[in-house]
């Protein structure tokens, strides 16, 4: 048997099962699914950015209560907003640059690779654009709170707090364990995403791209 025989048999394949399906019903189902997917994406984008906005609103209310002495809160809000704006711009750029499935395979793979490499860079360098601003923002909030509290608290109030073993343990635990653990957790999750998800996909796409590229 040779290629022509295979081709002959291939072309005599029977029509697929379900070829006579009700197209109007299919179209209606797909349209509903498409709209659901669009809504889900919108909800995801809004919920991810609104968490940061809510934090900013909370900080603004806190600042209002503190009065002019709480000015470092303004910087904290600005830094948090900066992270949100960066995040939104990134999402927007990714949406705009995406190629649909109707694009040639090579172009789509090149775009997906570029996108994944960018994502990898962002995940890998999460400290300068995400963790550092949020860390500084958190430090500013603590600084502002302490500054205002120091003005209104009776003399020796903080020393008294540290003399109480329970409050001292809570304060030390919060500053030395809980907060660093949160930041380390965020860093770890991102690093893990790179190693477990992004890198294998990049490798697979690069392999496919090599096959699509003519040998030099």
């Amino acid at each position, binding site marked *: *048997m040779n*290629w022509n*025989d*295979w*081709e002959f*048999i*291939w*072309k*005599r*394949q*029977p*029509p*697929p*099962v379900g*070829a006579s*399906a009700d*197209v*109007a019903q*299919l*179209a209606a189902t*797909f*349209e509903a*699914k*498409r709209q659901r997917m669009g809504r889900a994406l919108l909800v995801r984008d809004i919920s991810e950015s609104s968490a940061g906005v809510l934090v900013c609103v909370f900080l603004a209310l806190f600042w209002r209560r503190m009065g002019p002495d709480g000015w470092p809160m303004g910087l904290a809000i600005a830094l948090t907003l900066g992270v949100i704006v960066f995040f939104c711009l990134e999402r927007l750029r990714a949406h705009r640059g995406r190629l*649909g*499935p*109707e*694009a*040639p*395979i*090579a*172009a*789509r793979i090149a775009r997906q690779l570029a996108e994944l490499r960018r994502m990898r860079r962002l995940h890998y360098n999460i400290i300068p654009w995400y963790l550092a601003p949020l860390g500084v923002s958190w430090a500013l909030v603590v600084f502002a709170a302490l500054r205002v509290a120091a003005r209104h608290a009776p003399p020796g109030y903080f020393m008294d707090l540290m003399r109480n073993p329970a409050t001292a343990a809570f304060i030390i635990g919060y500053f030395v364990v809980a907060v660093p653990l949160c930041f380390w957790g965020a860093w770890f999750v991102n690093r893990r995403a790179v190693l477990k998800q992004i890198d294998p*996909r990049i490798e*697979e*796409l690069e392999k*496919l791209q090599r*096959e*699509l*590229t*003519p*040998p030099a």
Partner: protein
Amino acid sequence: MRAPADHESLFKSWLGEHRGILARVGRSFADCSAEAEDIEQEMLLQLWISLPAFKGQSKPSTWIYRVCLNTALTWRRDDSRRRRHVESRADFGDVAAAASSPAKSAGDREILEKLYEAIRAMPSLDRALVLLLLDGVSYREMSEVTGMTENHVGVALTRARRRLAELMKGTTDELE
């Protein structure tokens, strides 16, 4: 921009004419019949979603191949979806038998089944090219679908055909 009613009629005419493409691509990229059905559904959905982007600059069949192959290649990369089918892995044999008309000989069915098996054993790009070639797609259209140059399509196809022949070697010897 076409009206939604136009989309529906276009979708309808395409499905009537090219449904076989979806079935063949689905079967070539899936490990079992349940997965093939899922891929087919995903391809149909992607076709529906991408329909407004069709400007008529290429033949509908070329455009459909692009959407289907891109969808199937993305599907192959998404392991979580594939794992769902591991438990329910069923042979394609029953589906092939059910779809065959009595006129088709058992030998043809067997060769077809082996051909699909061989295609599934090939790397993704070779799989796509062999599929296009067996469907009688020209080099120029293949180049439009894949984004490769026509020359490179030729080179890659020679390699893919050789690989398919190797995979089919034992099979066809057995059948003859």
